[in-house]
């Protein structure tokens, strides 16, 4: 780690210092305003939200970085993953753990296939036309939302019981908390490390990182970059679909799930820096924790979660004013 920091540019070092200072500020203000236990519960909830946002935002960031496509259908992948996962979890007659695993498999595979079809069939012909891609993915998001509504109905789906393996509670910060929440945090951290290792330790990852910087040069080195594009798009879709199914035992499935997470993911990608994986990871923590603290604060002082959404948008504006390319994004030369 000391080697890592020694190699950073002064701007990146400043970004890390800002992040550390801001997270310390969040912890401090939570302790002062809510007291020890509530602060702990709030930050724990924020940590879980951070992991869910990360699953959606990491795909969005990688897709944007490599393909230059701002994928507005990313939220719809969460939605499709949640509803397909929900239906599978409910209908498979196995033990709850196996049913949940089947639901995860169904959600991930179907959203992955959907991503592959969309990238190869619809987005690939439009690589030279970025504006059309925005319109296309925006439209796809709307179509998928409509399809989900037609197939599964407009009524929200209530949370299903977590699989047996993650049932039960544990005692923390003066409150009993579901083990399933701990599973979400653990899963998010595992995926964060796994994708990080993929990007940093494998040849495919090196190609992806190089492609984020200059996909044309990667082609000129003899690498079929279109295959890499498809892989990254599918990976992004799969992670979003995973976020969808993982949400089912926690908050059920609702039609606004996609848009809710799309907005959070876009804020994360902008704050972290477009196309920066480490930026996305760090910004997921910032946004998840900020939202949880702001929600708790507004519930305490205004009896309504009025600050939850505005706080993260305000945060995004501040970051863009201080560092227009985001915390870890590349500055335009």
């Amino acid at each position: 780690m000391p080697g890592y920091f020694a190699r950073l540019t002064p701007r990146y070092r400043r970004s890390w210092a800002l992040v550390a200072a801001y997270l310390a500020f969040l912890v401090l203000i939570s302790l002062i305003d809510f007291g020890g236990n509530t602060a702990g519960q709030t930050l724990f909830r924020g940590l879980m939200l951070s992991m869910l946002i990360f699953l959606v935002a990491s795909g969005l960031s990688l897709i944007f970085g490599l393909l230059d496509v701002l994928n507005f259908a990313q939220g719809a992948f969460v939605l499709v993953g949640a509803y397909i996962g929900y239906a599978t979890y409910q209908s498979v007659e196995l033990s709850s753990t196996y049913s949940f695993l089947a639901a995860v498999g169904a959600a991930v595979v179907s959203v992955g296939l959907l991503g592959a079809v969309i990238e190869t069939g619809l987005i690939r012909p439009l690589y030279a036309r970025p504006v059309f891609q925005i319109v296309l993915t925006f439209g796809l998001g709307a179509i998928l939302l409509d399809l989900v509504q037609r197939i599964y109905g407009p009524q929200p789906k209530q949370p299903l019981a977590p699989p047996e393996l993650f049932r039960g509670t544990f005692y923390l910060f003066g409150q009993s908390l579901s083990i399933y929440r701990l599973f979400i945090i653990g899963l998010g951290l595992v995926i964060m490390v796994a994708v990080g290792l993929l990007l940093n330790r494998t040849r495919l990852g090196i190609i992806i990182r190089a492609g984020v910087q200059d996909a044309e040069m990667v082609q000129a080195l003899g690498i079929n970059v279109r295959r890499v594009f498809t892989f990254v798009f599918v990976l992004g879709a799969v992670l979003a679909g995973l976020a969808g199914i993982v949400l089912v035992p926690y908050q059920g499935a609702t039609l606004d799930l996609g848009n809710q997470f799309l907005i959070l993911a876009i804020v994360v990608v902008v704050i972290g820096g477009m196309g920066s994986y480490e930026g996305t990871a760090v910004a997921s923590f910032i946004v998840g924790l900020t939202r949880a603290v702001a929600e708790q604060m507004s519930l305490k002082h205004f009896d309504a979660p009025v600050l939850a959404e505005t706080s993260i948008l305000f945060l995004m504006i501040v970051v863009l004013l201080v560092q227009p390319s985001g915390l870890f994004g590349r500055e335009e030369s």
Partner: protein
Amino acid sequence: MTGPAAAPNHGAGAPPLLDVEQIHTFIGEFHILQGVSVQVPRGSITVLLGRNGAGKTTTLRSIMGLNPPRAGQIRFAGQSIHRLRPHQIAQRGIGYVPEKRIIFRDLTVGQNLQIAERQKGDLARKADLIFGLFPDLHRLYDLPGGHLSGGQQQMLAIARALVPDNALLLIDEPSEGLAPVLIEQMMDAIRRLSAHTTVLLVEQNFQVASRLAEHYVIIEEGATVRAGRMADLVSDKQLIKTYLGVA
């Protein structure tokens, strides 16, 4: 032999390694190349000359398939390549060193070299050649590409093209932005690497080009106007002045 573009033939007998024949390339609605022909004899250094905006860089990009020509033929080692995609062209054995070098800034020097491997072990096999030509890269192996100086980035860009077994290197403006001492080093490196591979060079600096290359092609307003042996061009001051504006 110095001759008009219509019949650029550098030598009798052996067919050229690269034969670009009357290509027309568009960028958007702009008709950039309007009949460029280039023949690159095997085992030589050939230089593309011409004023700024003449179409030299676009010619290299067309050969690589990055701006594919709409008309004309490109044959490499006797096979047509102008309908292939860039990665397929590269896999045929053409290495590309672009004008802006395009080093992957977040990757280390080592990763910048490893990514160019087409077969596992390419870099290990070429290590002696690469680090013999550019010893600095060995020292800088674990440093991110973004931390290198302009000269070091140029070395890395050329070294990257040497990792796989490329029969032809396309090198665009290797001396651009380099200090005179670094230009000398770069020239020396290109001269030495030409013992291993054929080189097609774009070079704005005529002094550099004339000392390096054995053959030349002059492009003006998107079309080949002259081609021949460099020794003949150097002795023809009028031709140099007419097409290159160099006294």
